[in-house]
């Protein structure tokens, strides 16, 4: 049946009649387009798909998806989705959140959802700024960031979102960007296929309040130098001429020139290697620093671990087998009854 659905549903079937209200030039448009385009690939019926968001610019997303959807409250999309997933494990659930929504006000729910490993997909739109409230620094803004609320520079040390997720025992972490639709589409598809919480961080440009935050990674002139696209089973190669690679020097990653390196020293990307994932998530240098490591994109880590909602179903089935289907009269009577006449 899912094959049949793939053939009948098109990206446009997932668009709604609502006017899209993001600023012209916003990176969110690109993500919406890619998400709509992969929906038919899920092989799921429209009515079995749910988009849940919190508050923030990107959280308007559900209004533009012709599926079931909820625009909830700030930071709580993850908690709403947890309850939905426990109640309806069979649904395809997508969480739309941002750096403020997921990592500041909703940080607690995010880490707890991750450790429970519900089978949901999280799209974390990271633009390193508060857009909807018109330009305050966010928990991913770099140190010293000058914004409306930090006129002489932010004092906050930023979160490294994927490292945070890995620290919470995430079973799938990946990074992509709004300006690379092809890569984005590939990562969204991989995330949708992962059974468990898929954490996908999307570098998304806010052209109004934080324009160019990720320019070094997305601009043609610097992209090849500054980014590292991870490919499973392949060495980590980057550079304008693909002349550089990453090697591990007694567990410390170093940039090496391929021409000078032993092939055996190069790091080979292995999504199942937790240690390597820890190393990769720490590739978080300021691109302005001398000798900095490139910023990785792609799937960092994927692991199969039990899902909370499946375990819950098992407990319910098990209890029902053991005790029999609940008998209300028996429950109301209890064990110690007396009769008054």
């Amino acid at each position: 049946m899912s094959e049949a659905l793939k053939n009948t549903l098109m990206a446009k079937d997932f668009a709604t009649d609502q006017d899209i209200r993001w600023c012209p030039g916003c990176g969110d448009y690109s993500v919406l387009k890619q998400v709509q385009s992969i929906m038919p690939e899920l092989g799921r019926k429209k009515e079995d798909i749910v988009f849940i968001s919190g508050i923030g610019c990107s959280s308007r997303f559900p209004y533009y998806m012709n599926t079931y959807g909820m625009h909830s409250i700030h930071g709580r999309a993850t908690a709403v989705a947890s309850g939905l997933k426990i109640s309806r494990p069979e649904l395809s659930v997508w969480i739309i959140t941002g750096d403020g929504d997921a990592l500041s006000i909703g940080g607690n729910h995010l880490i707890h959802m991750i450790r429970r490993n519900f089978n949901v997909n999280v799209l974390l739109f990271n633009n390193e700024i508060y857009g909807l409230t018109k330009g305050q620094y966010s928990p991913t803004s770099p140190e010293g960031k000058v914004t409306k609320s930090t006129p002489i520079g932010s004092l906050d040390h930023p979160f490294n979102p994927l490292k945070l997720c890995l620290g919470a025992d995430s079973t799938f972490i990946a990074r992509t960007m709004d300006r690379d639709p092809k890569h984005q589409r590939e990562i969204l598809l991989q995330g949708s296929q992962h059974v468990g919480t898929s954490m996908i961080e999307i570098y998304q440009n806010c052209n109004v309040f934080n324009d160019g935050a990720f320019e070094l990674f997305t601009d043609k002139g610097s992209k090849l130098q500054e980014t590292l696209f991870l490919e499973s089973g392949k060495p980590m190669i980057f550079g304008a001429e693909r002349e550089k690679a990453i090697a591990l020097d007694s567990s410390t990653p170093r940039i090496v020139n391929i021409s000078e390196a032993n092939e055996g020293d190069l790091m080979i990307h292995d999504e199942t290697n937790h240690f390597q994932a820890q190393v990769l998530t720490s590739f978080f240098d300021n691109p302005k620093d001398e000798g900095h490591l490139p910023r990785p994109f792609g799937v960092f880590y994927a692991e199969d671990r039990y899902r909370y909602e499946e375990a819950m179903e098992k407990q319910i089935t098990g209890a029902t087998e053991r005790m029999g289907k609940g008998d209300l009269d028996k429950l109301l009577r209890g064990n110690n009854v007396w009769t008054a006449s």
Partner: protein
Amino acid sequence: MTKKVEEKQEVTIVFAGDSGDGIQLTGTQFTNTNALYGNDISTFPNYPAEIRAPQGTLAGVSGFQLKFGSIEVATPGDDCDVLVAMNAAAFKVNIARLKKHGTIIINSDGFNARDLKLAGYDTSPLEDKSLNDFRTIQIDVTKMTRTALIDSGLGKKEMDRSRNMFVLGFLYYMYNRKIEGTIEFIKQKFAKKPELIDANVNVLKAGYHFGDTSEVFTSRYNVKAASLPAGSYRNIMGNQAAALGLVAASQKSGLDIFYGSYPITPASDILHELAKHKNFGVRSFQAEDEIAAMCSVIGASFGGKLGITASSGPGIALKGEAIGLGIMLELPMVIVNVQRGGPSTGLPTKTEQADLLQAYYGRNGEAPMPIVSASTPSDCFNAAFEACRIALEHMTPVFLLSDGYIANGSEPWKFPTADELPSITPKFVPAKTTDETYLPYKRDENLVRDWAIPGMKGYEHRIGGLEKEIDTGNVSYDPDNHDKMVKIREEKIAKIADNIPLQIVNNGAEKGDVLMLSWGSTYGVVKTAVKECNAKGMAVGHIHLTYLSPFPKNLGDLLKNYEHIIVPEINNGQLVKIIRDKFLVDAKGLNKIKGIPFSTKEIIEVIEQKFEVA
């Protein structure tokens, strides 16, 4: 020696000791045995927030009060006939509540120099002449327990843990009750530790036999079974009854329960009870915090389950924003508040009714919601069932207010059969047959919208916390639309009054000089007080409200039948404000904010004052 048996109509006993002494267990066992015997009963556990407060101190005293009778028992009693004091601190905290000529059962081992010092006594109160008014039975419970266990191979510490059983056995003898029920309980409780079964049973029997053989008292007492209305009964605690009411509503509506909550005193026992009933399809989820608990319930309700959460005041405060979302989404869900002393952390293990205004007004914006309240431990069942019914039939979050007093208190419950309970019809949309666009916020004559859940083909829709356009549910910033929607949401709640019973005068005079208008856990004590005043010839009526929002349609008319309206509450005056606001009547508050329930005496005094003035 054969002792004569004296008949009593009702007896109030306070068990008191250190919070590690097993007082709550002793009280519960004594309660269950008397309930099974057929007495009417009301209980009042009263314990400190600390799990093990420093031993022997006044702060660490745990108490369990119960009244059992052959006549109707609606309160755990004002003063007690019997005080069991396991140590000097327990004695000091409770002695003022012992009736003149009452009986004190003392564990003399709890009155050594150290115990006296910790309780703040310079000399032993047992040697005080003031005790002459009472009958004192001194037993060295520790010594007797250890003697009974001399061959058990247990260490002294382990032996001493059974001391409560000695006292319980002794009281069973004194009140002419069988010990078999408790033996059965001990066997189940210690199924995995057979040596403890033997120890506890031996000490229980030792206590019983000590009552028989010693000559510390000459007569036993008997409290005959009460003549309760015919039917089958069980004993039940409030939180347990609430949980069963929720399960019953789930069964009668055909919707499985999703229960998302975060542990908090005194609401956690609802979670514990529901977690046992997975074979009823109950999905219980211990969330990471109160906010997540509430939001997970919203997700579950969106998914078509019966979403429920419970907490106490501080947790409800945290849930406030999400409850507002529930109101905006117009999804069914139940929020239980087992109230405790506030504000802030307040008095976690003490009772209060001070969250009524929070339930009424504690959200941003115009956010009305229905409020149902429970009046006794067993009534928590009915109130929980009603809260679910209103939520599902009117597509709205509903508050259920209970409090620590009835949540932990217990009483006999004439439980219903499943057939006797009404069925509940959730407001699901019918299966789609036409191409007509689904309007999520189109309403029926009660202003209730239809419920379409994920998986229903052709009903895909988006909802959220932003203001909605009438009918379509699309985001709308239109000024007139907002004005109308605020009023629609208000009227929708007001219309629930058409779907709840009319108010009755629960007790006493239908018309008269004084009306006692109460809600929640004050039911039993107000009823008792009103009956006593009626017996003295005073024209006092008692109206007790289950439905606090909206009020029953006839309430305003009923209020006109009385000269004076008194609103007794365990708070600083909350229902009284709402009554004055809503009905423009000169209602007066009677308030107590001590973390403990009213005594009957306190209510009667105020009623009598009204008559003296009149």
